[in-house]
């Protein structure tokens, strides 16, 4: 009984679970790993998960992309364009933020000669 409920939950929410799985993998990497480059990779995975979650929320069953490439496309079965528009800009900003984080990592490495967060006093927790 419980098993079938779990299966039902998984069937209905598998995309949310995948997106949050990525978010948790990213958070876990950020919290656990000591190497700064790995922390930045975790940040990137976290961002991918958030983007996937936004797209999954906007999905409508059997919907097409909201583009009227020819006049025969009907408006009834189209996914929500608003999350797509948000994610569109979020991806490019994610690239810029990743580059900024990497540049800070480069500066940190030039200063301390090491990327291990356990051995940098200001970065330890």
């Amino acid at each position: 009984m419980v098993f079938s409920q779990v299966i039902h939950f998984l069937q209905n929410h598998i995309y949310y679970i995948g997106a949050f799985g990525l978010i948790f993998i990213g958070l876990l990497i950020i919290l656990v790993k000591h190497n700064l480059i790995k922390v930045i990779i975790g940040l990137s995975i976290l961002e991918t998960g958030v983007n996937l979650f936004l797209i999954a929320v906007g999905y409508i069953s059997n919907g097409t992309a909201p583009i009227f490439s020819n006049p025969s496309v009907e408006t009834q079965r189209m996914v929500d364009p608003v999350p797509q528009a948000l994610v569109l800009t979020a991806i490019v900003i994610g690239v810029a933020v990743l580059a900024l984080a990497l540049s800070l990592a480069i500066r940190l490495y030039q200063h301390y000669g090491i990327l291990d967060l356990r051995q940098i006093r200001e970065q330890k927790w």
Partner: protein
Amino acid sequence: MRSIISILLLAFIAWGIVTVIGEIPFGTEKSRVGGHYVDQGREETGASNIVTSVVLNYRGFDTLGEVTVLFVAAIGLGAALATRRKKEKREIEPASLVLYTGCRFLFPLILLFGGYIFIHGHLTPGGGFQGGAIVASAFILVYLGCRGRRISETVSKTIESLGGLVFVVVGLVGLAVGGHYFLLNFLPKGELNTLFSAGIIPILYIAIGFKVGSELAGVIDHLMEESE
């Protein structure tokens, strides 16, 4: 110890989230504003790509803010890396003839493809952000394939500033002509599904394409300079 605390914390957050997302149905329409954009977007903006009309027309002011975030991140990267004194020019081993010729052959084609993507942003999947990323990928090819060639920092900064300026000026002209709000679509909408349609949207997307392309190329330039 640290990892145990982290896993316990994440398990707690995960439990909270699972109880909440069980309530969100998947695959149904959740916001009426999205339906309105899909139904009325073609008449109101003239763009056949509804995502573009949301990005540049309904939420154009948001996009200006996001472009500013990108600009600030690129400036921050430059500031973080530029405090170091300039190293003297080091000798770079030149690439082989095949690699050099291949990347010189591909570079204009990739630029052309990027330009196609951001000029047709209101008709096909694509737009200024994607086209700008493709243009920047052409510069990655040059930096990796034809070592020793570099983009001029002045030119990239000028194109970037012009792109941002065109966005703001077009928005202010819309404010002056219409008098209601920033980024009013004051040009004629034209016929749906043709290149010269959708008023100011193609102009803004071309500006964004140049801006994003030159910004990401500048980011690549800074990072590659660091690796040499």
